[in-house]
């Protein structure tokens, strides 16, 4: 038992919690102090407090990671989310697999950001860090794991809890209090994916960065510096927009690669809960930029920046309090934190709203109304559209919350979120996306060109014409005939062309300002990419044989799926497609091993090489034990067209604990479309195979014969002295034959055994899985130098696949990258601006 490390971790948790309060208090005093020496004194205290706090947060991270990586399974966290076989990078994802870990991750980013703020911004340090420290105190309370004496209220859930304390009812601990499990429960196989190593930290960095503009905004209200908070907050808002957007898209990309619903976005409450704040954040960025240029929309900026952070807290509440339990496919475990989360949400909502109401009258606003021909007007309309777009998603996602509130007031409500969530959200969001596309085209245009009615016509004609021509080409070539998709395409192309025009003129004059144009080009491409890849995704694995796969399957299944037998090519999507057999994945090396080449052991994760095998430069000797990922089976499927060859390895996880088959796709990427393939039915490993009647032949050494129409040759027959699973005495004899079978795709070997043990004859046949042959050595005839071989054949191995074409999905991914690049350019511009002001001593 390693008690020390857990106690140390717990000490760090408590230290971080207390120092967060101390820091908040000190910075609060520093903000309100008027005497310079007193201010300096409290500032110093606050800074020290935050450094101690940051150090203890780091301490929490290190201790938790040590517990995980050293496999201290006496701790609940290590036992529940990891096991001995996980490689280091998945031990890292174990860290944030539990809710406690993700709170720690969030605190970690806040600590890092806090230190950056302390060092970059002397003027705002005190008020901003007061809010930072308060937020940290609330987050710290989530992992406190302390029971209030007397009240019996538990605050927080500690990641450093021992397994025996977490599972007090388990009988093993009553008998053996010091029991330490040999191995852990392991990480959910679906999460053993490289995206799950980088997606959560990115997303939480996105969450954390929304705190910075929020804190600057509240600090501005607090100090009555209503105008000045925008400049330091803007680069952070841009950074946050980029990182949060990237985090969301990474999650979508993970879903696309790993889950099998055939898309990247499912409109699940969990996804919506981060999508909404991101939209509002983008709206806030727009109003802040407008304010920086023309001193309008300051009040809107205040509202939106506050709304973003409150929505982040709300999304945390939604996803972690268990309130979505009946509404989301993600089954959340309720840690009993819902009360704490609610207080956290309400506290900051209340403080922010109260402060803004209190100061509302003092916030300056523009006297004159914006003209329709002004850029401010159009950007403001754009921001409103984004807000409504978010509102439309927020309303139905919150239905479980409405139900709770109605119940609280004594009513009953049986409202449930829309059943067909993808169709439901898409039908609304599509039109918002059209509006966003159109507005970002027009808005950018107004932004850069001072314009009136006449000028407008002149300037607009050329780009509109180009956009229309491009639009006609895309619609015709892409065969887009659905009205709503046509409009969406138009919006996407319109914003793309308009912004491209702006970009070209800016590149000549001032490339540093081109961030907005670049980002909007990205948005245009994303709209087009989403339209094609989601709207025109189609099933290509159509059953064109005219035969049903099975009468027991549904009509749809028989139509949309393709049955492939090993080594029997079919055609699909203009390719020859051929199934080559089941493959296993070595745990510590790349590549795939043919299942035929190894024999299984009692341990699912270990197999023994039957022969010498070479896979991707790794050579395995016969009898070598190979560590594999036992839960995964891959199905090698080859696509051929002309001289080109491409191999797909869709995966199935046959996992009895999880109740069956979990399939993940493999994706064949071409420039114009992705071919998204997953298995939809597989042979059951446990099922008894239907063997043909035994065929007996007599052959000599080196003689060729046919087995299931494959050419086979008896290479050797040798006496062996060890047979797996059989005890041989001196009087016993065992003989092993080695037969080479020439398959369509390479050679296979079968090694049946003939033995005489205690004067009884025994035969151990050997099976070539991929080819459906079982060969036994039936008898030896020394007088004629012949051997009797028995051959059984069966139906060849098969797999049923479903494949979908996702046209132009690359346009979406490229658009995403361009959007991120746009954010980067805009951010570096604002940072330059901020530095300049700082050098002038204005910050």
């Amino acid at each position, binding site marked *: 038992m390693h008690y020390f490390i857990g106690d140390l971790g717990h000490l760090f948790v408590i230290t971080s919690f207390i120092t967060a309060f101390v820091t908040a208090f000190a910075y609060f005093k520093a903000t309100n102090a008027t005497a310079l020496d007193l201010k300096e004194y409290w500032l110093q205290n606050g800074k020290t407090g935050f450094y101690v706090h940051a150090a203890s947060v780091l301490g929490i991270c290190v201790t938790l990671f040590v517990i995980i990586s050293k496999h201290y399974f006496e701790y609940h966290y290590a036992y529940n989310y990891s096991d001995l076989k996980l490689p280091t990078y998945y031990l890292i994802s174990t860290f944030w697999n539990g809710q406690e870990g993700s709170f720690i991750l969030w605190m970690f980013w806040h600590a890092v950001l806090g230190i950056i703020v302390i060092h970059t911004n002397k003027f705002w340090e005190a008020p901003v860090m007061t809010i930072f420290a308060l937020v940290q105190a609330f987050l710290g309370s989530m992992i406190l794991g302390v029971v209030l004496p007397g009240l019996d209220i538990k605050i927080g859930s500690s990641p450093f809890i021992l397994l025996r304390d977490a599972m007090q009812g388990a009988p093993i601990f009553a008998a053996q209090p010091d029991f330490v499990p040999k191995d852990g429960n392991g990480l959910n196989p679906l999460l053993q994916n490289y995206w799950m190593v980088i997606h959560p930290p990115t997303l939480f960095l996105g969450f954390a960065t929304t705190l910075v503009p929020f804190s600057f905004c509240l600090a501005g209200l607090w100090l009555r510096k209503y105008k000045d908070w925008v400049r330091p907050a803007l680069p952070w808002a841009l950074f946050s927009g980029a990182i949060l957007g990237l985090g969301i898209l990474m999650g979508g990309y993970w879903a696309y690669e790993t889950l099998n619903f055939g898309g990247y976005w499912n409109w699940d409450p969990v996804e919506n809960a981060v999508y909404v704040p991101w939209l509002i954040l983008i709206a806030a960025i727009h109003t802040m930029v407008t304010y920086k240029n023309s001193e309008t929309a300051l009040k809107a900026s205040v509202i939106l920046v506050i709304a973003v952070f409150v929505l982040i807290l709300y999304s945390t509440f939604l996803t972690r309090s268990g309130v979505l339990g009946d509404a989301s496919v993600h089954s959340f475990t309720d840690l009993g934190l819902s009360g704490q989360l609610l207080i956290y949400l309400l506290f900051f909502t209340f403080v922010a709203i109260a402060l803004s109401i209190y100061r509302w009258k003092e916030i300056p606003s523009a006297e004159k*109304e*914006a003209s329709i021909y002004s850029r401010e007007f159009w950007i403001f*309309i754009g921001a409103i559209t984004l807000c409504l777009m978010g509102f439309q998603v927020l*309303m139905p996602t919150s239905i479980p919350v409405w139900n709770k509130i109605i119940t609280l007031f004594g009513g009953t409500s049986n*409202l449930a979120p829309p059943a067909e969530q993808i169709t439901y959200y898409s039908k609304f969001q599509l039109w918002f996306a059209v509006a966003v596309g159109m507005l970002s085209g027009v808005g950018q245009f107004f932004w850069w060109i001072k314009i009136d009615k006449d000028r407008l016509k002149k300037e607009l004609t050329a780009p509109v014409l180009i956009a229309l021509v491009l639009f006609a080409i895309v619609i015709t070539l892409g065969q887009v005939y659905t009205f709503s998709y046509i409009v969406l395409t138009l919006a996407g192309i319109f914003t793309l062309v308009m912004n491209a025009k702006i970009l070209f003129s800016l590149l000549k004059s001032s490339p540093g300002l081109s961030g907005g144009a670049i980002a909007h080009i990205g948005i245009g491409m994303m709209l087009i990419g989403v339209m094609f890849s989601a709207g025109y995704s189609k099933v290509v694995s159509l059953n064109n044989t005219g035969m049903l796969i099975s009468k*027991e*399957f549904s009509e749809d299944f028989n139509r949309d799926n393709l049955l492939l037998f090993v080594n029997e090519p079919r055609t699909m999507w203009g390719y020859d497609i051929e199934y080559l057999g089941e493959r296993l994945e070595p745990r510590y090396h790349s590549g795939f091993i043919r299942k035929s080449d190894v024999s299984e052991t009692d341990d699912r994760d270990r197999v023994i090489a039957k022969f010498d095998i070479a896979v991707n430069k790794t050579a395995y000797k016969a009898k070598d034990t190979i560590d594999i990922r036992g839960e995964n089976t891959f199905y090698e499927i080859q696509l051929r067209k002309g001289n080109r060859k491409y191999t797909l390895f869709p995966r199935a996880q046959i996992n009895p604990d999880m*109740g*069956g088959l979990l399939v993940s796709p493999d994706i064949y990427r071409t420039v114009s479309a992705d071919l998204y393939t997953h298995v939809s039915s597989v042979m059951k490993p446990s099922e008894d195979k239907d063997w043909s009647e035994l065929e007996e032949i007599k052959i000599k050494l080196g003689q060729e014969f046919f087995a299931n129409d494959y050419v086979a040759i008896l290479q050797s027959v040798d006496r062996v002295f060890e047979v797996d699973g059989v005890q041989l005495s001196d009087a016993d004899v065992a003989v092993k034959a080695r037969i080479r079978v020439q398959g369509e795709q390479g050679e296979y070997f079968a090694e049946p055994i003939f033995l005489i043990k205690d004067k009884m004859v025994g035969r151990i046949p050997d099976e070539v899985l991929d080819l459906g042959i079982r060969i036994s050595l039936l008898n030896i005839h020394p007088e004629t130098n012949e051997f009797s071989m028995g051959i059984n054949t069966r139906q060849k191995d098969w797999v049923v696949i479903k494949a979908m074409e996702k046209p132009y999905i690359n346009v979406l991914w490229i658009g995403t990258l361009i959007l991120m690049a746009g954010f980067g350019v805009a951010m570096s511009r604002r940072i330059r601006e901020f530095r300049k002001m700082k050098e002038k001593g204005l910050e």
Partner: protein
Amino acid sequence: MKKSHILVLVVIAAAIAIIVSTAGDASTYVGFEEALAMSTSGNKKEIHVVGELKKDENGHIIGIEEGADKVSFSFIMIDDNGKAQKVFYDEPMPSDFTRSEKVVVIGSYENEDFKASKILLKCPSKYQEQKINV
């Protein structure tokens, strides 16, 4: 009327439209009996039913059958009113299905069979899990 006023009115109208459409498109939580009544009266809208898996007196789950294609299955669910119903699902069993303490099925009746298009699970809090593999 000033432009800003028009704008405010438009935004309010849009917000109300969104709220109304949310209420209109929302599904409902009902029992199997009501769902069957809705279905026979021609309302094929998908609904949510909350319930538990059928268990024998020893607490073992009974009534789960694997479909012919191995990637579909059916099970018996008892809704909150106590009515048992066989539910068909065209996908493999979700992870943790048998451990769930509460099941939500989203779908509709096809004649006498309930076809689920989605299954949501409520799993026991991890601190309640008392089984440990020694």
